[in-house]
C-alpha cells in the first residue's frame, strides 16, 4: 500500500507540475501573441488608464483629462477647444488622433521611450511613465485676435516668427470643439456625423491642410524670382510690360484692376498689384526659373511637417507659356496653404531665409523636465539677401499708401501684399481675400512676425471682397499683438538681466 500511495502522490504532484509548465507556456511563450490579439482590449484600456499629458500655450495647458471611471478611463477635455483645434487636433477614443495630438502622441500618452530615464525600472514594475507635455510656440493673444478677426467667416490665419520659424498663431474658421469627440458612445458618434456633414467643414484645418489660389500675394514670389534671376536689376526701371497683355500663344487679354500698369516698374507693379507686369516677368523668367524659385519657397514640397503634416502647395511643373503667365500672378493651378504664404512673407522679412516652421518648442515629462527641444534650422534659402531687402521696401510701400494701407501700424515698419484670388468655374466663385505681411517694431533689428490671412468671405458681395478690405485688418491686429508681445518679452528679459547684474541688496 505504501508503494501505491507514493505512486498516487507522484501522480497528483505531476498534475500540479503540469499546471506550472502550462502556466509558463501561456504566460511566457504565448504571452506576446496573446497581448497582440486585436480582440484583447488591454492595450487600448492601458492607453486611457492614465491622464494624457497636456498641450501648453503660453504656459497654460489648453487640454485636460477627465476621469470617467469607465473601462477607457480618461477622456480628453479642451479649454477653448474651437480656438485651438487647428493646433491641438483631437484625441478621441473612438476616432483616433489628429494634428499635434497625433504627431506627439507617444509623448502625450506616455509611451515615448524618451520619457523613461530608466526604462528597465518601468519594465520591471510594468509601470508606464506619466504622459508628458507638449509646449507649443503658439501665442495666446495672436491666436485669439486672429480667431476673433475671422468672426466665424470661412478662412484661416497663419503667423510665424520669421527669424526662428516659430508658429505664433494657427487659426481655422469656422472651427469645432474637439472635446465633443473625446469619448465613446452615441453622442460622440452623432457629433462626429454632424461635424463631417456640416457644409462649412469645421473640422478642416484650413491653415495647414487647405490650399487656395494665392492670387496677387504670389507676386512676391514672382518678383523674387525675377530679381534673383537678374531679369530685373532696378526695381524702379520700366519693365517693357505691355498693357493690355496678350497671354502668349492665345488671344486672351489679361486685364489689370489697377491703373498705370503699362510698362510700369516692378516697384509700381507690386505697390498697385499690376497683373500684366508680373505675368510678363514670369514668362521672362521662364518655366525653369520660376519652378526653381517656387521650390526655394517650399512649393511642391509634400513632406513638410510642423510636426503635423502640411498640405503640398502647388505650382505646376509643366505648362504652356500662357498658363505660366497666369501662374505667375497666383492663378491657374497655383495653390498655397496659408502657412506657405506666411512663409513667403517670412522669407522677405528674414533676409531671404526661411527658418524651419514649427509648432512645438519642446516636449517635457509630466514633471516639466525637458525631453526634447526644437533646434533652429533653415528650411529653405528662398532668395538672395539683397533681393529680400528690396522686396521689404516694396512691401512697405504697399502698406504706406498702396493697396494694403489697412494693415498700417503706427510707429512700426509694416510690409504687406494684398490678393484677391479668382476661383471657380469661369472665375464665378466669390474670390478669396488674401493678405500676407510682416511687421517690425521700432528700434528692433528684424521683423517680429510674418502673417498670412485668407478669408473665403462667401457671404460678401463680390465687389467688396479684397485683400485690403477683408484680410488686412485681421493681419494688422495679429501683427500689433505680436509687436506688443515682443516689447513685453524684451522688457522682461531686460528686467531679468538688470536683476542678474544688480549688486545684492543688503
Amino acid at each position: 500500500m505504501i508503494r501505491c500511495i507514493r505512486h498516487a502522490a507522484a501522480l497528483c504532484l505531476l498534475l500540479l507540475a503540469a499546471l506550472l509548465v502550462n502556466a509558463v507556456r501561456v504566460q511566457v511563450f504565448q504571452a506576446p501573441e496573446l497581448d497582440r490579439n486585436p480582440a484583447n482590449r488591454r492595450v487600448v484600456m492601458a492607453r486611457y488608464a492614465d491622464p494624457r499629458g497636456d498641450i501648453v500655450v503660453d504656459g497654460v495647458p489648453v487640454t485636460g483629462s477627465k476621469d470617467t471611471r469607465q473601462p477607457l478611463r480618461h477622456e480628453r477635455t479642451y479649454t477653448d477647444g474651437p480656438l485651438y483645434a487647428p493646433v491641438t487636433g483631437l484625441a478621441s477614443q473612438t476616432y483616433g488622433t489628429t494634428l499635434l495630438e497625433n504627431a506627439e502622441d507617444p509623448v502625450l500618452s506616455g509611451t515615448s521611450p524618451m520619457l523613461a530615464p530608466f526604462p528597465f525600472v518601468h519594465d520591471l514594475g510594468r509601470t508606464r511613465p506619466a504622459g508628458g507635455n507638449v509646449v507649443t510656440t503658439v501665442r495666446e493673444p495672436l491666436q485669439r485676435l486672429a480667431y476673433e478677426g475671422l468672426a466665424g467667416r470661412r478662412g484661416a490665419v497663419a503667423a510665424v516668427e520669421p527669424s526662428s520659424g516659430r508658429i505664433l498663431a494657427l487659426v481655422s474658421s469656422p472651427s469645432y470643439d474637439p472635446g465633443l469627440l473625446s469619448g465613446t458612445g452615441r453622442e460622440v458618434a452623432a457629433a462626429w456625423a454632424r461635424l463631417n456633414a456640416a457644409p462649412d467643414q469645421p473640422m478642416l484645418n484650413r491653415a495647414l491642410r487647405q490650399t487656395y489660389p494665392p492670387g496677387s500675394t504670389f507676386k512676391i514670389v514672382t518678383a523674387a524670382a525675377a530679381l534673383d534671376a537678374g531679369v530685373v536689376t532696378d526695381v524702379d526701371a520700366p519693365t517693357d510690360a505691355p498693357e493690355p497683355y496678350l497671354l502668349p500663344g492665345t488671344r486672351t487679354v489679361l486685364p489689370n484692376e489697377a491703373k498705370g500698369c503699362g510698362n510700369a516698374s516692378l516697384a509700381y507693379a507690386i505697390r498697385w498689384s499690376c497683373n500684366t507686369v508680373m505675368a510678363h516677368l514670369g514668362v521672362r523668367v521662364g518655366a525653369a526659373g520660376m519652378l526653381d524659385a517656387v521650390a526655394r519657397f517650399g512649393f511642391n514640397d509634400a513632406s513638410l511637417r510642423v510636426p503635423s503634416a502640411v498640405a503640398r502647395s502647388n505650382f505646376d511643373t509643366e505648362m504652356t507659356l500662357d498658363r505660366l503667365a497666369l501662374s505667375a500672378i497666383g492663378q491657374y493651378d497655383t495653390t498655397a496653404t496659408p502657412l506657405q504664404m506666411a512663409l513667403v512673407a517670412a522669407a522677405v522679412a528674414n533676409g531671404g531665409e526661411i527658418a524651419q516652421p514649427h509648432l512645438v518648442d519642446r516636449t517635457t515629462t509630466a514633471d516639466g523636465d525637458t525631453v526634447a527641444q526644437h533646434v533652429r534650422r533653415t528650411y529653405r534659402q528662398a532668395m538672395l539677401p539683397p533681393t529680400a531687402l528690396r522686396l521689404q521696401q516694396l512691401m512697405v510701400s504697399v502698406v504706406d499708401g498702396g493697396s494694403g494701407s489697412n494693415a498700417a501700424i503706427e510707429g512700426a515698419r509694416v510690409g504687406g501684399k494684398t490678393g484677391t484670388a479668382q476661383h471657380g468655374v469661369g472665375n464665378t466663385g466669390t474670390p478669396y481675400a488674401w493678405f500676407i505681411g510682416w511687421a517690425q517694431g521700432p528700434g528692433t533689428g528684424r521683423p517680429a512676425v510674418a502673417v498670412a490671412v485668407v478669408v473665403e468671405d462667401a457671404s460678401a458681395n463680390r465687389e467688396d471682397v479684397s485683400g485690403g478690405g477683408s484680410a488686412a485688418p485681421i493681419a494688422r491686429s495679429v501683427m500689433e499683438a505680436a509687436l506688443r508681445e515682443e516689447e513685453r518679452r524684451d522688457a522682461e528679459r531686460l528686467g531679468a538681466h538688470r536683476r542678474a547684474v544688480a549688486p545684492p541688496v543688503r
Partner: protein
Amino acid sequence: MTAKRRGVELTLLVGAVLISVLGYVDVGLARSGAVPPDAAAYGAGLGLLALLAHLAVRFRAPYADPLLLPIAVLLNGLGLVLIYRLDLETPDDHAAPTQLVWSTLGVAFFIAVVVLLRDHRTLQGYAYVSVAAALLLLLVPIFFPAVNGAKIWIRIGGFSFQPGEFAKILLAVFFAAYLAANRHALAYSGRRVWGVQLPTGRVLGPIVAIWLVSVGVLVLERDLGTSLLFFGLFVILLYVATGRTGWVAVGLLLASAGAFVVGGLEPHVHGRVEDWLHPFASIEAGRGPGQLAQSLFAFAAGGMLGTGLGLGESVLIGFAAKSDFILATAGEELGLAGLTAVFLLYALLVARGFGTGLALRDPFGRLLATGLSSIPALQVFVITGGVMGLIPLTGMAMPFLAQGGSSVVTNWIIVALLIRLSDSARAPEPRGAPPGAVLPVVEEVR
C-alpha cells in the same frame, strides 16, 4: 517524543495573516491610493479565525502537521483579497463579505471536527451513513432550477449551496472505509480471465454501483468537473487499496471512452470541447473574445511578474470571474511568480496530506488521507487546466481561492480531517483506541 511544532504553526499563521492583510492594503493603495478603511477589521477578523483554529489544534490535535493550517489560512486570505479586488469592479455585486461569513463558518466546522472527532477511525463506522447522505445530497439539486446550465445548486431563501461539494468528503469516507474492509477480497478473490484476477461481483458490485450512480447523477446535472473528480478519486483509491495497476488502466480506458462519448454527444459538453480546441473561434467569427480567450488574455497580461494587485483587467472575463475564473486574476495581477507560489501552496498541502497517509498505520486512515489529498490535487488540476486551456473547461471552484460558500466550508473540513489524521500519524505510541473503533491493521501485507 515527537516534536509538536505548534510554535512553528503559530509563526506561519502570523505570516499568512500578514500576507493577506498586506494584499488587502495593496489593493486599496493601487485602486484609490488609500489604505482600505476596514483593513484593520479585516486583518483582525482573519487573525481571530486563524487564532481560534490554532487553539483548537493546539489543545485537541497537538501533534498535527504544522503546515496544513497556515496553508489553508493563506489560500483563504488570498482568495478574500482577490474577491474583494474584483468586487471593486462590480459595484452591484459584493461577494467578499459573504465569502468572509462562509469562511467563518468553514473555520467553525474546522474547529468542530478537530474538537469533536477524537479519532478518525470513528468515521469508518459511518461508511454507509456517509454514502446514503452523499447520494441524497447529489440527488436533491435535480429538484431545483438550473443555474448557468448546471443543476448543482440548492437555493433556500437568500442562500445557495452546492451539495456536491459536501458529497466529496462523504464519498471519500465511504470509499476509504469500504476499500479498507474489502481490499483483500478485491485483490485476491474471483475468477481469472486472460491471466487477470477479477474480483467477485459481490465485493466489487456495490462500490461500482455507487460510483456509477454518483457520476451518472452528476452528468445529468452537467457537473462535469465533480464527476471527473469522483472518477479520479475512485480510481486512485481502488489502485491504492488493491495495488493493482490494472485498475488504473481500466479506469483510464473507461474515462477516455466516457469522455469521447459524452464530449461528442452532449451539446453542453461538446461546446466546452469546441471552446477548448478553438478558444479564438468567436473572435474570428466577429463575436468578440469568449470567456476562455479572455482568461488567456488575462494570464498573458500578467506575464512573469504580474501587473500588481488591483491593476489588472481580468474583470473583462465577466461572468464567473470571481468563482471559476478567479485564478485568471491571480495570474494577471500576481504573474507567473505569484501563480507558482499558489501552485506550490497546493502542492505542499497535497504532499503533506500524502505524507500523513504514508505515516499512518491503519488502512482506513491511509486511504482516507490519500483520498482527501487527492481531492484538492485533482480539483486544482481540473479547474486550472480548464481556465488555462490545457483541458476542456469544467465549472469547478478553486479550493479556498474561489467565491463559493459550500466549497470553502468543504475545504476547511478536508483540512480539519487531515489535521486529525496527521495528529494520529505523528502522535507518539502507544495511543489507546477509543471504544467502538475498529482496531488498526498493523501489518503490511504487500
